[in-house]
């Protein structure tokens, strides 16, 4: 019975997040246009794009193999499964002890499927994009993992019900750990915003797709339905990644019971996600250009990961002392 409710919740959450995340990318495009003194597309533009892509003819390259067709579906499936482990204002639907590992795994797996699909097209541009994507993937995740594990370890010292679960973020949070942890938290805000920007690949980190340089790189061969699915999955993933940032750093929610409590908390969470994405995506991509891949990797290891180490050590000291 509980599983049936959780599944129902997952379906509703999936519908909600699909709509909200596409809506946000509409708002994002509008805001970017306004920042550059353009009128920009209507806010519902991503929905029209999606519908159009779904109705277009899908072309399969002659060099493609079975993964080319399977990868977008697998990617979307992974992202939907990931929603069950995402904190969205209330604890994740399938929260268990240690589910943070599942979360990180599925988040990476979605990218991995995309990469597999891209190289399966046989297009050399796609291959370059995929190689860059892998390099970015390997460079950006350690900073996030270290930050998340440090915060969760700190929280688990405060007697939570399920240690190292994303649900524990709603029992206690990083700001309760004392003044040393506040400094750590400020460092981690920087780390997480940078990670989010590299995860959704905007601004400095818009390298694998790099429209002008390598002709759309990763998505060069995808068209029609598959492109629509990938775009949808990517925007849901954007929402999920931002949700993680919100849950780790700004988890304040209203303490209200009943079904309206869940809905209200979901709305509050969505607003916080919008704010985080506004900073990390909209503004960042308007004011910065793209780095070269070597520079981006350098930035991720020397600036972001190093900051993450500093943040984690400060946090550990704050908890221990």
């Amino acid at each position: 019975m509980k599983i049936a409710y959780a599944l129902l919740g997952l379906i509703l959450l999936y519908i909600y997040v699909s709509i909200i995340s596409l809506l946000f990318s509409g708002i994002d495009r509008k805001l970017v246009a306004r920042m550059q003194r353009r009128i920009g597309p209507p806010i519902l533009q991503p929905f029209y794009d999606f519908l159009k892509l779904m109705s277009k003819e899908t072309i399969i390259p002659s060099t493609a193999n079975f993964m080319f067709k399977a990868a977008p579906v697998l990617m979307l499936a992974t992202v939907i499964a990931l929603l069950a482990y995402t904190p969205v204002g209330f604890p994740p639907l399938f929260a268990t002890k240690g589910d943070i590992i599942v979360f990180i795994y599925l988040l990476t797996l979605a990218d991995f499927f995309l990469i597999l699909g891209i190289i399966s097209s046989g297009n050399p541009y796609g291959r370059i994009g995929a190689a860059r994507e892998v390099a970015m993937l390997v460079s950006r995740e350690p900073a996030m993992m270290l930050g998340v594990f440090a915060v969760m370890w700190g929280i688990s010292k405060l007697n939570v019900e399920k240690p190292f679960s994303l649900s524990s973020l709603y029992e206690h949070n990083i700001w309760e750990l004392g003044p040393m942890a506040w400094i750590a938290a400020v460092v981690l805000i920087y780390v997480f915003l940078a990670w989010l920007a590299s995860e959704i690949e905007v601004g400095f980190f818009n390298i694998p797709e790099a429209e002008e340089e390598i002709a759309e790189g990763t998505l060069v061969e995808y068209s029609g339905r598959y492109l629509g699915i990938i775009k949808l999955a990517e925007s849901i993933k954007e929402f999920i990644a931002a949700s993680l940032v919100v849950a780790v750093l700004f988890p304040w929610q209203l303490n209200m019971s009943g079904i309206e409590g869940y809905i209200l908390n979901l709305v509050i969470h969505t607003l916080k996600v919008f704010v985080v994405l506004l900073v990390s995506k909209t503004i960042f991509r308007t004011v910065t250009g793209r780095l070269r891949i070597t520079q981006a990797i350098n930035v991720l290891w020397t600036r972001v990961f190093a900051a993450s180490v500093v943040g984690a050590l400060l946090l550990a000291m704050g908890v221990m002392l």
Partner: protein
Amino acid sequence: MTWLPFIIIIPLFGAFSMPIVSLLKGKAKEIWATIISLATLIVGIEVFREVWTGGTIVYALGSETPFGKANFPIRIVWEVDKFGAIMVLIITFVSFLAILYSIEYMKHDTGLEKYYTLILILELGMLGIAITGDIFNFYVFLEIMSIASYALVAFRNDTWEGIEAGIKYMFVGSLASSFVLLGIALLYGQYGTLTIGYLALKMSQNPTIVAKVALALFLGGLLFKSGAAPVHMWLADAHPAAPSSISAMLSGLVIKIGGIYAIARVVFSMFLPAVNLATVGWIVIIFACITLIVGNAMAVVQEDMKRLLAYSSVGQIGYILLGLGIGMVAYGSRVGEIALAGAIYHTVNHAIMKALLFLVAGAVLHELGTRNLNELSGLARTMPKTTFAFLIGAAAIVGMPPLNGFASKWLIYESSALFNPIIGAIAIIGTAFCTAAYIRVLFTFFGRPSEKVMKAKDPGIAMLLPMMILVIAIIGMGLFPWQISDKFMIPAARTLWDIANYVASLMGGG
């Protein structure tokens, strides 16, 4: 009545009748070998069930009890506990699939009656090691297994690499076996008995320096057989040179039964009362850490597909040895139990997934005639089923959650992190290398099809069927990881630790 003797009788009968059966022309020898190995599989399942419902089986050859008129065992005994039963099951399973696979894979070769005789003898030798409770009998079966595998590695004796790898393997392998024999001779001279359980009893009463020297000789010989790091070089040559069905058995079974199982059995069931287990454990852990890093790191740089898989086997043996070593040092604690259960679980899982990967490599070799990874670009286009099997196998060996490799590696990570965080970090580094190696192969397979690859196609049903059975086994076991671990692997680890029960069931029952 117990099914146990038939586990030896049936393959022995099959092997010895093979020259006569092969006088019939046509497919008689293939069919005969398949029937024999299927019958062995059925007996293996029955033995497994028997042990799991009735506890340890003790079987004395030639009489009802191993004692005769004496008050100590004088006959050869076979003693199958839960760990042994797991090994029996996995040996018969993988051997059956390898023989089924050979029907199509080996059809271009000549001298097949010798091939099927040898492969049945190889299976027989491994089963003997798993069931025996007598140390000299163990040596005999170890040699049966080793000699059959020397011959099978060099089976394609018209190729230079087969002969080269066979000679290398035989020279060093014989040396390693002679260490084991020397160890046995020392133990017999000191304690006057060859039954494992009774030796343990004698050793506990009178631990001597001879026992320690014997243990050192055993460990030296058996680490060689398992392909641990400083002595893994034979493996990297033997696995690529052997026919792929043999590589699957060598990598999936031989290095585990002749190495891991034998070390676990000798240390836990024989030397446990006489030596300081922590020292032995740390020696094993050091070798394990070196093996982990060397094996996985060397796998990354390979260009030959089967060589890559061979080095990856070395790396995975490192994990199993790590679990085993922690199981020795942390004897009697919760951490040690998890580690040992993880080692046993990983032995089973790695047998299944490495068998699958070698069968896939064999299919590629069979269709394209090359093992060079640079020429195999875009294989997924023309051999989709084979590539899919490889994808599953590679994901399982890296340890991705919905597949079986996850749970076993998790147990090893968890226990090593609890035991000593540095060792846990080494295990993670090993996995990072392993991931890099397999991702590279996947990128090649899913890339742009090269001209050579365009002419290939999926192999026939006799080669695809074993691969698909292994894929189903990987996915199926992956769906119930903790149930398998709690129901089978942890009890097996406990019985392996429980030497009192091992000795008692030998001396009291039988």
